[in-house]
């Protein structure tokens, strides 16, 4: 059984006020190409198809095209909703779509029926678990004690009644403990959302979504495919990919990273303004974050830079001043200045000389009188 595992398309995402639609369209096209080449049995999209619960019309039509193109290739397609998607909207027409070999996870109702594919080794059960929050599961299983995300997924998995004699693939969109973030994930506000990898160990492969950096967690078969595009400058320097997984016998599992080249890369350029303006050796339409090392601000820096790099996204300075700012820690208790010191300082600043003996004595007397 060979299938492609991808996730976190975030179609329609806007990064630093620039729309990524064009790049997404390009990369989706590239994925279609690769799929055509590789001819897998299935394609798994592990959540966050869209960036918003109500995506823009362009986004919807882009995914529509993508899905159609994929289905034309004849592979089975598995989709779950992520934390950015609206579970209900994703599940729209899912029952109809299943007739066309596109299997979308329905809104979680406590029971998950796996979709079974067969190959020469037997059956493979695909369990599609959409993104769930504790409240949902708590509502469905009122007797169970569900305190956090960990309990949530544990309960959900328990109710799947997995037959471990067969090969089982879980498609899930959650945050696992020890996974490395990449800076563009949206964290849940107000709670601990991580779950333990041990809960899903029984599956032969866990196709994860949610983290945008491709990585395995705890064991090789529990894997995030990562997002197909870089969505934050923290990911600069990494290579984006999708995953081709091969399941032979029960414990035979291998995977391959299929690399993706984007239309426009995300890069960080650092240097003085002069250097940057005069650089000639790189792609000018990439998404750039520019760090200027000049000591003083360049007037109209942004405008001038945009003339050279039309898609530049962020501009910041790294000089003495900025270093000073960042060095102020939040909780640092700055020692309070004694009143007499304050007066010394202001006197020196305004008059260019120190207080005389008598003046200082008078100041101290008054200070004693007032402050006690």
């Amino acid at each position: 059984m060979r299938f492609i595992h991808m996730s976190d398309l975030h179609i329609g995402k806007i990064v630093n006020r620039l729309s990524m639609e064009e790049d997404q369209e390009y990369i989706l096209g590239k994925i279609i190409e690769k799929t055509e080449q590789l001819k897998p049995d299935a394609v798994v999209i592990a959540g966050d198809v869209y960036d918003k619960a109500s995506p823009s019309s362009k986004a919807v039509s882009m995914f529509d095209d993508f899905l159609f193109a994929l289905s034309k290739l004849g592979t089975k397609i598995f989709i779950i909703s992520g934390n950015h998607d609206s579970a209900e909207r994703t599940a729209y027409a899912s029952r109809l779509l299943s007739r066309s070999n596109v299997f979308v996870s329905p809104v979680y109702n406590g029971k998950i029926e796996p979709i079974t594919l067969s190959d020469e080794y037997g059956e493979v059960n695909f369990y599609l678990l959409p993104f769930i929050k504790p409240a949902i599961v708590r509502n469905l299983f009122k007797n169970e004690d569900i305190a956090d995300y960990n309990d949530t997924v544990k309960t959900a998995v328990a109710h799947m009644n997995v037959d471990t004699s067969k090969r089982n693939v879980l498609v899930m969109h959650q945050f696992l403990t020890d996974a490395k973030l990449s800076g563009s994930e949206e964290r849940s506000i107000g709670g601990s959302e991580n779950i333990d990898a041990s809960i899903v160990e029984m599956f032969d492969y866990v196709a994860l979504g949610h983290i945008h950096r491709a990585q395995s967690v705890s064991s090789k078969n529990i894997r995030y495919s990562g997002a197909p595009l870089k969505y934050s400058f923290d990911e600069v320097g990494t290579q984006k990919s999708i995953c081709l997984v091969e399941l032979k016998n029960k414990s035979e599992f291998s995977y391959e990273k299929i690399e993706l080249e984007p239309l426009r890369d995300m890069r960080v350029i650092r240097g003085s303004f002069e250097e940057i303006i005069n650089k000639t050796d790189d792609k000018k339409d990439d998404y750039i974050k520019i760090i200027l090392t000049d000591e003083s601000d360049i007037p109209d820096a942004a405008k001038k830079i945009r003339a050279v790099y039309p898609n530049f996204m962020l501009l910041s300075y790294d000089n003495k001043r900025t270093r000073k700012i960042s060095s102020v820690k939040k909780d640092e208790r700055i020692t309070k200045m004694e009143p007499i010191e304050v007066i010394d300082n202001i006197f020196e600043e305004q008059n260019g000389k120190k207080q005389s003996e008598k003046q200082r004595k008078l100041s101290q007397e008054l200070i004693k009188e007032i402050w006690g």
Partner: protein
Amino acid sequence: MRPVYIEISAFGPYAGKVCVEFDRMGEEGLFLVAGDTGAGKTTVFDAISFALFGLPSGNDRQPKMLRSMYAEPSVPTYVYLEFVCRGKLYKVKRNPAYDRPKLRGEGVTTESAAVELILPDGSIIANSNMDEANKKITEIIGVDREQFSKIAMIAQGEFRDFLLKDSKDKIEIMRKLFRTENYEIFQNKLKDLRSETARNCEDLKKTILIPLKNIGCDEKNEYYAELLNLKNILDDKDKTPPAEKFADLAEKIISEDAKKLEELSKSETDAKNKMDKAEKELEARKNLADAETKLNEAEKQLTDLNKKQAELKEKKEAAEKQKPKETELTGTIATEREKLKNYDELDDVDENIKKTDKKIKECEDNKKKAEKSVEDANEQLKAVKEEFDRIKNAGEEAAKLKNKVIEIKNSIEDLSNLKKYAKSTQDAEKIANVETDNYLCAKTDADKAREKYNIAYRNFLDAQAGILATQLLKAEAETGEKQRCPVCGSLEHPHPAELSQSAVTGEELDELEEKKKSAEKNESEKSKYSGEKKAEFTKEKEKFEELASKFPDFAFTYNDSNLISEEIENKNSEKSELEKQLKTCENNKKRAKEIDEEERQKLEEKIKTETDNKNEFENHLSGLKSHLGGLINQKTRVLSKLDYDSKEKAKEHINALESELKKLSDAIEDAVKAYETNKNAVSEASGRVEELRKSKTELAGKCDETLAKTATNILESEKQATEELLSEIDEKKDKIKNRNTLNINAVNEIRDISVQLAKDEEEYVYIKELCDTVNGNIGSGKDKIKLETYVQMIYFERVLERANQRFIEMSGGQYEFVRREVLTDARKQGGLDINIIDHYNGTERDVKTLSGGESFLASLSLALGLSDEVQSEAGGVCIESMFIDEGFGTLDETSLGKAVEVLDSLASNNTLIGIISHVAELKNRIERRLIIKKEKSGGSSIELESDL
């Protein structure tokens, strides 16, 4: 301050009671308050703010607006808040003033604002101490409402407040937050000290002028010109008085004067000695001269006295010869005194005469009065008699009139009856006529009916044949058999009668007959009735004519109602006339009776009595007159006995005699006395003469022999000259002494004051410097920065530093706060204005140029920075929660994401942050939510949702 539990009742849009358990949201993290517009989201924050400070969160609503309009009148308005501060639980319940219906009786009463605070140890600060409770709460939390609204509760629409305020306003807020007032006090104290010192210097400068002016110098003195010069300088106010020079000069003058003084003293002593000697001699000479004069005088006096003595002796002897006359006079006086007694009798008689006169007069008056009364009474009697004659006959007349009245009344009655009869007659006539008409109608009807019936009967008869014929034919047609003719019995009917169209059936005929009968009945009835009415009419008429016969003059007919009425009128007026007359008559009759019975009698009696009185008085009068005659005789008799006419004259005479006697005695006495006195004086005078002779001889021996040669006048002039010289010297000495004292004092004073002045001026210099520095008054060109502002600037920069950390992040590295250094207006206090550095184009510009969303991010960062800085100060303030009301709607996707990230990182630091927003994305991202719904029935409800 972190809220744990809140209960809101009848507050804002909440009609009933709603409660929120904040502790279910945990001790830290973000939570969202979402709901429909107007559901009550801001009200939750208002409630928290109100419970703590008595004021809602923004500046738009007033506490008296807080009662819910949807609430039942019986539901009370209050907010109950439990909050934790530094680990301890406090409970506060507060309600605003509002009107509610009375518990007993009708009407509305005002529930006054009240607050109740329960401290962790259980003690309660209740209602009556609203100020105390408020103060305590401010103490517990560490900030007052102003500060709270800047750093912990950022109300809707007010987040730009702090960002855009003037430096002046910011100074106020910073002062409250960072307690910099002490620096202001320091400034003010220095100011006071400076003015005090300045004043002292001025005073001293003025004081020193006095002694300077006091320095004096003799005009001939060599230093005089110099002194004048220096004094001129004093007048020039710009120059400082050269006190030292003055002092030195003065000392020189002083020493000179001292020398002079010595000289003068010496010459004084010499002159004095000379003068003494001269004086003594002159005195002795004077005394001698005096003594001689006195002696001469005394001798003269003696001679005079002796002369007088001889005179006086003579006089004495003459006086003694008068003595016998004295005795005579005394005798005469005694006799006259005896005679006085006789005058008393005269007085008595006089009095009696007066009394009798008076009595006589009285009696005459009374007599006259009585006479007059009699006259009056007679006249009255006459009048009454006349009246009586006139109305004697009143009674008879009255009777006559009465009869007449009765007559007229009767005739009036008759007339009215007549009128009635006339009317009834008329009526009867009318009815009779009507009935006659009716009868005629009925008759006509009956005739018509009769005719109709007759015609119909004829027809009927005529038609019988036709009917029979028709019936016959019909029967034949029906049965098909021939029928016999009922008349002739034939079976053949060659010519059946035809039924005429206007055939009348038997029934119709019967009908008509009925009708005819009823019409005839009607007719006869009516005829009878009309006859009756006519008879009635005749009867009435007869009745009328009978009565009318009583008035043959008028010939009334029953149609003359008007005339009758007229006549009635006339009679009525006649009647009233007569009645009036009758009344007068009756009155007269009464009067006549009165007169007869009473009045006449009374008057006659009166006349009698008065006449009697008159006679009495006449008698009395004659008696008195005779008495008077007797008394007059008596008086004449007494008078003849006396010498004088009256007692007074006798007394006068006696007094005259007495005074004569006195004169005489006195004269004698005086003469004797004078003689004796003079004798004494003579002896005295001779003794004195002897004495004086003796002393003269003595004094002559005392005169000085050395000076015997110098004539007295020369001595005198010498003495005078010396005297003059002495006084001159004295004067000069005095002048010099005075000047000296003044100068010495002046010099001392000058020295003292100069020292003090120098010290003070030095002090002033350094105090002024310090004061100016601290009060921001260092000349021009330097920033006008006061000490307090300087301190605040330091804090402010720190605040901006902290704020920048967040602001740079939230604006994607584009914006940064910086404190404005250059003063926009050198007159205004500056120092706390904020500029923005835009890194994207490297410019610095005013913070007011930011867009709405950007200023929200700026204000949020600033609030966070401010809150951080306040808390990092020596922990008076502990902000464990923060509330942000709206503002997120102004942000785009990217900024919103960044802002929420910043808040999230803040929240995970033991802070509970509440956000009100209806941005849909936040609902998805924030997992704990308070959903506020507007109920259809009015009022709102709160639900806590959590995805965890």
